[in-house]
């Protein structure tokens, strides 16, 4: 498999990168290349120009502050894995990202690339939606910030404009006593999950769950929250009966796609089991 012919640019600033994307209608951003290269190898895209972000400064930092956690677009899976502060500051993120891809791919694949790709089974978009993250983009008209819930439009479809570059993903503050869990099922470690669930809730003064967020990946054309299951958990004191009811509601709420990996019924059953396990774990 050989890539189609293209030109390559390696701009040294964000402004130059945006200028190249705006001038050249048929350009694509290159980050880790771990998805773009296979896309080019299969000739699913044939851009005239690749704009490599590797020399654009400031995109590879992880910033933890009192308000939020900011992941630069070029932060790689291995950077998240090795970061010493993230497992306390964003434990759900750290756990979910430990499931992404294989060793060699983790050394190059990036947060921004995964968000831009919008694979329905990818962990990072799922965490962004579950955690109410914001995605910062810079284009020729300047910067805009889009909530994750509005960012993903469908399978491999986002609201990014051709001249825009993702610069940062911002995750809101995470209280240290929050209950959480992430569970996914993949045929082989590091492969894309058949489905996965991310869960968190806070415990109120009466010991009941509040502010429940339940996100699911691999179960529809984009990552989404499961409102009916969240409603069952909110205000409840978690026990096996509540968990069973929420998991049942979740599997009724989703309308999974059917593909050669698994039929829709299987994915419904899988989401139910994963949510049961996740809630049981979160409560423990």
């Amino acid at each position: 498999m050989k890539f189609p012919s293209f030109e390559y640019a390696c701009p040294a600033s964000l402004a130059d990168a945006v200028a190249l994307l705006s001038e050249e209608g048929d350009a694509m951003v290159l980050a880790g290349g771990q998805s773009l290269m296979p896309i080019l190898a299969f000739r699913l895209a044939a851009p005239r120009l690749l704009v490599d972000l590797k020399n654009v400064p400031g995109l590879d930092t992880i910033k933890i502050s009192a308000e939020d956690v900011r992941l630069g677009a070029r932060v790689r899976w291995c950077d998240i894995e090795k970061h010493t502060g993230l497992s306390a500051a964003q434990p759900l993120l750290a756990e979910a990202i430990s499931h992404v891809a294989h060793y060699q791919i983790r050394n190059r694949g990036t947060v921004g690339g995964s968000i831009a790709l919008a694979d329905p089974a990818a962990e990072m978009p799922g965490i962004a939606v579950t955690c109410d993250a914001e995605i910062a983009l810079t284009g020729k008209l300047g910067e805009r910030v889009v909530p994750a819930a509005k960012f993903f439009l469908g399978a491999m479809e986002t609201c990014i404009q051709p001249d825009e570059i993702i610069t940062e993903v911002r995750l809101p503050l995470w209280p240290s006593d929050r209950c959480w869990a992430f569970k996914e099922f993949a045929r082989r470690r590091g492969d894309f999950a058949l489905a996965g669930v991310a869960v968190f809730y806070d415990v109120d003064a009466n010991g009941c769950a509040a502010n429940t967020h339940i996100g699911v990946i691999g179960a529809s054309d984009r990552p989404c929250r499961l409102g009916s299951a969240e409603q069952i958990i909110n205000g409840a004191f978690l026990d096996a009966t509540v968990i069973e009811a929420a998991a049942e509601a979740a599997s009724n709420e989703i309308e999974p796609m059917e593909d050669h990996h698994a039929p829709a019924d299987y994915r419904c059953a899988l989401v139910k089991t994963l949510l049961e396990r996740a809630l049981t774990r979160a409560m423990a």
Partner: protein
Amino acid sequence: MLVKFNVNGDTVEVDVEPRVSLADCLRDVLHLTGTHLGCEHGVCGACTVIIDGEAVRSCLTLAVQADGATIVTVEGLSNDNALTPLQAAFRKHHALQCGFCTPGMITTAHALLTEEPDADAERVRDVLSGNICRCTGYVPIVEAVLEARAAYANPDKADAS
């Protein structure tokens, strides 16, 4: 495009089209055919090389992206005089049969053990999950990598060059 990088200790300059993968550049331009191509889309791991100390898939990296980098291929992990500890362990445990996956296994294991000489069996399996072997059933490969750890804990002995 002119690209300059260091491969196995030698600085080389090549003139390649941007669309040429690092794997094709190594094999076809530099004639370093030890790096194998199995799938050419990132799933098999046979093409693994080490760039600036990190194991990466050379089929998913453009040669032009490697400008200025230091690259180690499987050729750079051998020694004219004797088997390296990793090679000796692969031989002892029959960790290869046809040998097609072996360059990727060796480069991946070398990168891992250089950084984590105390990697346990679970970690070794986790890391090697990105490399497909159609022959061995993986058990001997994991055993070989575990055995080679001792040499990496003592860096003088693991020196492959």
